[in-house]
């Protein structure tokens, strides 16, 4: 950049990008308060100095870092949606979306760790609101990250048809006896993992499906086995295990909410949980754009930087536009939720489009990096690995389309 003394002199002080879009994504001034802005800037500082530096190696090593997980707890990310009386932040959904988005710019594994802990704690506070003693015993430590609580819904027989559950809980005296297994359960085998919110069929089927209840099951209860760590394509530094339940006895106090209503209530309550995943997609796209920007400004071909070739710049522009789409959809939904509007349409649409945008962006990014886009230490490669799950977890595109179609009035036929 040419600068003249006497004109306003730009002092080239900065080390990172001078470009607000590159560092913060598509601006959405209407969506945020000054406190959101402060939270975002704290998150950005924390991510840059604590999360980003080891992200590549943790992913390569499939290593969940307990110290880092505790530092995230200190920042306050896990308890964002937990009421303050249980040690939480009593914050809004946009604050959680900012946390998963900013983290996913560099490390989707840590972002999903935050996401699952945050939704599990919020769900526990919601389903357990008639058990303040149980909440006081569990939530304050979970908010800091000293205790992890996982979310156990998916079974080996299928996650999309989640209402079909084979894990059973049978009442015996004042207790429940649980048998069955769960699959792909995030945060269930870390040094802090102490509980799972478990969904199990209770009572007899009426009209083909058993009523499903939710229980808070301690992972050290007799009969619970945490299976071996899954080896994964992406989210490799997040912690995922199968869980097995063999005649596990829990007291009636472990039942969360009304008997037979736990699943329906969880599903209704967690509509918003698609938005922090959509935010992760937005963050991942920004991460792709940063890596593209770094690479195409440094690397030269045919006598000029790659980015000066229009065909390359257009691809970068497309990634930027995909990121903008994901951001707008995410925070439109989160803003509406925070202001009491219904968000079924918004949550499904944001999840569907953002996750697909992330996959497209990561595909473009790895392509633009050439051979480096195939090397495991590249950020673009990591984003490509991490993007794939975004269309699978929290409901596949088919599930989102089922929901959207139902809202269009096509429900009966799907």
């Amino acid at each position, binding site marked *: 950049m040419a600068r003249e003394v006497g004109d306003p002199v730009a002092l080239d*002080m900065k080390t990172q990008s001078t470009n607000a879009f590159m560092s913060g994504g598509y601006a959405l001034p209407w969506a945020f308060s000054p406190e959101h802005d402060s939270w975002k800037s704290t998150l950005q500082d924390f991510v840059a100095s604590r999360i980003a530096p080891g992200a590549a190696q943790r992913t390569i090593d499939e290593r969940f870092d307990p110290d880092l997980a505790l530092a995230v707890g200190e920042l306050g990310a896990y308890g964002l949606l937990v009421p303050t009386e249980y040690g939480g932040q009593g914050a809004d959904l946009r604050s959680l979306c900012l946390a998963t988005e900013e983290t996913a710019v560099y490390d989707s594994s840590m972002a999903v760790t935050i996401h699952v802990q945050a939704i599990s704690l919020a769900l526990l506070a919601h389903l357990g609101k008639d058990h303040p003693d149980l909440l006081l015993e569990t939530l304050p430590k979970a908010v800091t990250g000293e205790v992890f609580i996982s979310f156990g819904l998916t079974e080996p027989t299928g996650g999309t048809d989640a209402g079909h559950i084979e894990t059973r809980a049978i009442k015996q005296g004042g207790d429940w006896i649980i048998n069955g297994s769960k699959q792909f359960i995030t945060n269930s085998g870390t040094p802090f993992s102490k509980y799972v919110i478990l969904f199990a069929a209770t009572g007899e089927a009426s009209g083909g499906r058993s009523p499903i209840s939710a229980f808070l099951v301690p992972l050290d209860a007799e009969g619970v086995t945490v299976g071996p760590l899954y080896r994964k394509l992406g989210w490799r530094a997040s912690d995922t295990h199968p869980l097995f339940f063999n005649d596990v006895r829990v007291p009636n106090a472990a039942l969360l909410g009304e008997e037979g209503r736990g699943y329906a209530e969880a599903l209704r309550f967690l509509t918003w949980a698609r938005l922090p995943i959509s935010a992760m997609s937005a963050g991942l796209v920004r991460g792709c754009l940063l890596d593209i920007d770094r690479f195409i400004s440094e690397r030269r071909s045919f006598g000029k930087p790659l980015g000066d070739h229009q065909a390359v710049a257009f691809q970068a522009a497309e990634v930027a536009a995909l990121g903008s789409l994901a951001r707008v959809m995410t925070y439109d939904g989160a803003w509406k939720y925070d202001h009491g509007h219904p968000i079924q349409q918004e949550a499904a649409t944001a999840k569907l489009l953002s996750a697909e945008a992330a996959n497209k962006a990561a595909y473009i990014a790895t392509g633009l990096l050439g051979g480096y886009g195939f090397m495991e230490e590249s950020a673009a490669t990591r984003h490509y690995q991490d993007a794939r799950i975004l269309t699978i977890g929290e409901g596949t595109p088919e599930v989102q389309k089922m929901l959207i179609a139902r809202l269009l009035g096509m429900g009966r036929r799907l």
Partner: protein
Amino acid sequence: MNIAVCVKQIPDPAAPWSLDPSTHNLVREGKLILDDSDAYGVEMALQLVDKAGAGEVTLVSMAPRNETSGLRTGLAMGAAKAILVTDDQLAGSDALSTAKVLAAAIATTEFDLVIAATESTDGYTGTTPVQIAELLGLPSVSFAKKVEIDGSVVKVDRQTEAGYDEVICPLPALVTVTAGVVEPRYPSFKGIMSAKSKPVVTLSLADLGLVGAAGGAVAGQEIVSVQKAEARQAGVIVEDDGTGAQQLVEYLEQLKFV
């Protein structure tokens, strides 16, 4: 233990800065943020108050347009309250004017210790803190890399070119801290939310009785011109064809190093 911390709110170093073509002062439009070098002072103060078990940290700042964004960051870190001096007449203040204003503002609160950074990231004069100490009649210790309170004295390891001096100084005093003194905490979500309701007292030059005594109009210092820093020349690359050592010695001789 009550500690006043001088904090500067500066334009975000991550965005391009510019100088006003007529005054050559830094353009301070838009949002200002807490100067990174002051985050160390805030952290140091919070730790000292914590250790003492009683007292509070007060932030003191001079900034245009009632700007409080940077103060909110310090409050989110844990400071109890802030004093902001803001006045149109302060535009173009020099270091001495700034020191007069900050000293007068500090004098409105109770303090045992004043902490400042060794210098600001946007001005780099490094002269304001010691002038504040002089105006308040306080002893000052600069370049602290370690600070401890022991009864009625402050013990400071003072960074020097050769190592460090151990300095003991009676309280109240002013200490300037270096970037290495402590690791600043990240403002937590709770901190950010509670900062919203912490008191920020806003004072004008008149409130401090300094009309005509401080500000741009009485600045004794003026920036007359700004020159572009010379671009660094590329270094000399010595290929070692067996005479590398010889070439290095010749090069150093030429620079009169050997």
